[in-house]
């Protein structure tokens, strides 16, 4: 059959010079996001300058991995067969305790997911080199 029918693998991130520290942190099992030493704000995603004050005085900060659900959707259909085989699953926007918002997969029962619920980071190995930050409902949420 066609390549399309067989599908293609779930995509891996194309890691670059700006994102390497973030992905390295994830591979080591923690969430490492940019922190601006000049204005003391955290932000996501990593970049060469602070989006709030344009400072280049940045560091990768190890953050708590805790946050709350800002919104979510239960995916019921995906054009990529690699993802479609996993439906239903939850994609969520998480507001981290440190401030920034990021998009992630929430590895919890879709029926238990609610906006505002507390979540915590977990890490899934995508390849021997790359781990993906995901989240689950917090045990003591």
């Amino acid at each position: 059959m066609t390549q399309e029918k067989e599908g293609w693998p779930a995509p891996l991130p194309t890691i670059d010079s700006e994102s390497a520290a973030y992905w390295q942190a994830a591979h080591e099992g923690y969430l490492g996001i940019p922190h601006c030493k000049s204005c003391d704000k955290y932000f996501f995603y990593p970049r060469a300058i602070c989006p709030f004050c344009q400072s280049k005085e940045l560091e990768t900060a190890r953050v708590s991995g805790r946050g709350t659900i800002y919104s979510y959707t239960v995916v019921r259909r995906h054009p990529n067969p690699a993802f479609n085989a996993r439906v239903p699953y939850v994609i969520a926007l998480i507001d981290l305790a440190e401030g920034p918002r990021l998009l992630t997969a929430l590895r919890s029962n879709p029926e238990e997911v609610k906006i505002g619920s507390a979540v915590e980071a977990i890490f899934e190995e995508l390849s021997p080199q790359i781990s993906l930050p995901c989240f689950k409902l917090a045990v003591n949420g």
Partner: protein
Amino acid sequence: MNSELSVAIVGVAESDLGKTPQHTVMSLQAQAALAALDDAGLTMAEVDGVVTAGAWGWAPSLQLAEYLGLKPKYIDSTNIGGSSFEAHVGHAAMAIKAGLCEVVLIAYGSTQRSDSSRKRPPDANATRLNLQYEAPYGMPSPVGAYALAAMRHMHQYGTTPEQLAKIAVTTREWARLNPKALMRDPLTVADVLKSPYICEPLHLLDCCLVTDGGGALIVTSKERARSARKKPIWLLGHAESTTHDRISAMPDLTVTPAAITGPQALAQAGLTLSDINLVEIYDSFTITVLLTLESLGFCKPGEGGAFVDAHNFAPGGDFPLNTNGGGLSYTHPGMYGIFPLIEAVRQLRDEAGDRQVGGASLALVQGTGGVLSSAATCILGVE
């Protein structure tokens, strides 16, 4: 109204729509361009500005100018998603006012429906730069992003699936009056709610169509517009903006950048919302329409659901909306933004046939692109 009448849309046309395996993106645009020029009473030789957008070429305006045999004085391939064409009208107007050119062709074509049955390699750019933080999760885009916005709006304001479904239903009522619309069967709220979920809370029938098709607009100067074949439709105000690219960077999932562009374009035209008597809003999803109505200021933040209940958007109703049947029921070839402009021009010319809105003289056309990422507003009017 304090806007000077200096630039007008004088020609509009669609290409073949629906499923068009006999066409390429280029032949769709050529077909629409010739029809729009005929509508304007102009010829291809008079075109000195070429504007288009699409993901089909590395520099689409160059590809289109070459294909049409043109050496234009003004070119623009601005791509801000589906709202590109509302932005293009503004760019064309600025170029004409600056004296760079006189007759601008704005065109669009897509064969996305026919392409979906062809082999396509994965897009390497889909995992690069800011997309590397999204692509590995299996976020279906754009529908997943709009679902996140819908879920947030429901949580924050109590908006219901029925209120969203009602938008699909009234839009279908308009499509039933449009011979060119793809979906013309009657539709009920129950039909929408029982269609399968794509991404909760959005059902299949909350989503736009996937079609082939194209369109074209001819924009020209005041002097040229005076000798056009039909009544010129004047550009009275224009604005464009963006608040984010990816949905995770959208400051508030219930407020679109139309909150910036709507007031700015109206102010430029010297008008307020209460002057507007025709509204064409990009309807990629039902939630897009509800959020845009709020962001434009037709109702207060959070009151979009109540607004849907209080007004009738269907033919004969008090708030005619998306009178061609929209991206939800008429056509949606990837980027839809050129089509609400075509419809607004036809309505303002009083040539919309069975779906003509009586007394339409001032239109607001609102484009939305990406994942609620960009907005562009055009205020159009008759003299």
